């Protein structure tokens, strides 16, 4: 069992190098990358925006309650924005992204494998690594941070809606406390780096699972499940490591 798991990890690592090596060639298929950004990014916007808004609203409610115990409701904007930028934004977006885009990448590539489309590309002298794998990898890396930013922005709006419009917090206090405590580089940009890394990890797992799935309907089903499970675990573990380094 442990040997199998190690072999999987090793194969996945080698696959990463193959993808990276195929990236220069994949720039010839730049249009395909654009198309994939559309699929993994633009098509995930609705779910990301909805979830971002609700997460922000919940944060607003919960933190307002907790902070009011300490008489610190003025810090609501600060606490919401810091928790969103540093943790919740990148992580929640990554988990949603794994469920929405990761699975569809795995299923799509798995079916391409099952219906010989990947072999057909090889036979047409088109490297599937450069035409299928690398564009999806790049698209995820581009789309993830953008989605995380959208998630954060909607989260702030949700918290503002709850805190200021409904619970009667002062608008100026909400913003000024936030702007005086949030740092662009330490908070916003570090969050962006996190989401770039999460995008790369999810893309690698999703493409790898699709690429190596047994060409049966059962195999594709298992592969999609594994994509979600593995990406969630790896994202959370990587989050811990990156937080420790970026602090």
């Amino acid at each position, binding site marked *: 069992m442990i040997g199998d798991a190690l072999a999987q990890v090793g194969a996945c690592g080698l696959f990463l190098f193959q993808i990276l090596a195929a990236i220069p060639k994949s720039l010839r*298929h730049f249009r395909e990358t654009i198309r994939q950004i559309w699929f993994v990014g633009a098509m995930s916007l609705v779910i990301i925006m909805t979830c971002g808004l609700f997460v922000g609203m919940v944060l607003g409610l919960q933190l307002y309650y907790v902070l009011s115990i300490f008489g610190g409701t003025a810090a609501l904007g600060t606490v919401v924005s810091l928790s969103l930028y540093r943790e919740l934004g990148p992580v929640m977006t990554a988990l949603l992204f794994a469920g929405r885009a990761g699975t569809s990448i795995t299923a799509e590539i798995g*079916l*391409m494998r099952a*219906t*010989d*489309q990947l*072999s*057909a*590309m*090889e*036979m*047409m*002298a*088109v*490297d599937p690594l450069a*035409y299928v794998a690398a564009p999806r990898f790049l698209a995820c890396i581009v789309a993830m941070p953008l989605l995380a930013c959208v998630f954060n922005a909607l989260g702030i709006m949700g918290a503002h809606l709850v805190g200021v419009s409904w619970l009667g917090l002062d608008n100026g206090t909400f913003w000024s406390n936030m702007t005086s405590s949030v740092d662009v580089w330490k908070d916003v940009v570090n969050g962006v780096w996190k989401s770039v890394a999460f995008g790369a990890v999810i893309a690698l797992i999703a493409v790898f699972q699709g690429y190596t799935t047994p060409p049966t309907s059962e195999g594709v089903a298992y592969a999609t499940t594994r994509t979600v499970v593995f990406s969630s675990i790896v994202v959370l573990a990587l989050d811990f490591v990156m937080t420790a380094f970026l602090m």
Partner: protein
Amino acid sequence: MTDARAPQNSDALVQVRGLRTTLGGKRIFEGIDLDIPRGKVTAIMGPSGTGKTTLLRHITGQLMPDAGEIRVDGQNVPALRRNALFDLREKIGFLFQNSALLTDFTVFENVAFPLRKHLKLPEELVRNIVLTKLQAVGLRGAAELMPSELSGGMARRVALARAIIRDPMLILYDEPFSGLDPIALNQVLKLIRTLNQTLGITSILVAHEFAAVSRAADLVYLIAAGKVVARGTPEELTHDDSPWTKQFFGGEADGPVPFQYPARDYAADLGFPATARPAGAA
């Protein structure tokens, strides 16, 4: 039929020598020698599971053999580097058993795919070439359909149009007739013949249907048990009387290719004393 294995045509486009392959612990080929003459349709036949498709995958370098030499147009495929292999593949058309059309694209874009990926042609020229090839397979009217809207026979003809879009020197057909109704089968058969005759494309045909093959092929190789067991024109093979050819072309259930998959003794499996041998276990 030992002499049949001896290569005769030195001007073969594809030469296979001493090919040995093991896949998943199973011996597939135990020393295959064959020649595919230029400009002819050569059929490779044999019982299911003898590795006919594997042979095609060897010729195109998708699969590496354990030993042996596969020369395509003078180049030894297993020894080629990736770039050289891709250059070679640009000159080979491959028709997949399940057509393998790219499901995201229309018929037109599917056929245009190899052109767009390898050549920078003006859109007008691409359109002309694609429509010409689609006309050749009789599906010019279906250019804007998606692959999911095609019947099996139509999908195979589209795949054929895609395989010939760059005028290859060699086309490999992997079971082009399987799952087709008689009309579609005859259409594909006619296309294979026409392409070979009008364009002079060397063709390798893997199929089971001897009736269809005998109308298309100039030369037939029969592979069984990892070896070439017969070679000749369809005409010669129908009159051949080796047990392999007799069983295969006569369609007999039992013979050199056993009806029973290798198994333990039937009686012992059922729990009887091994002395009793029920009929059918032979």
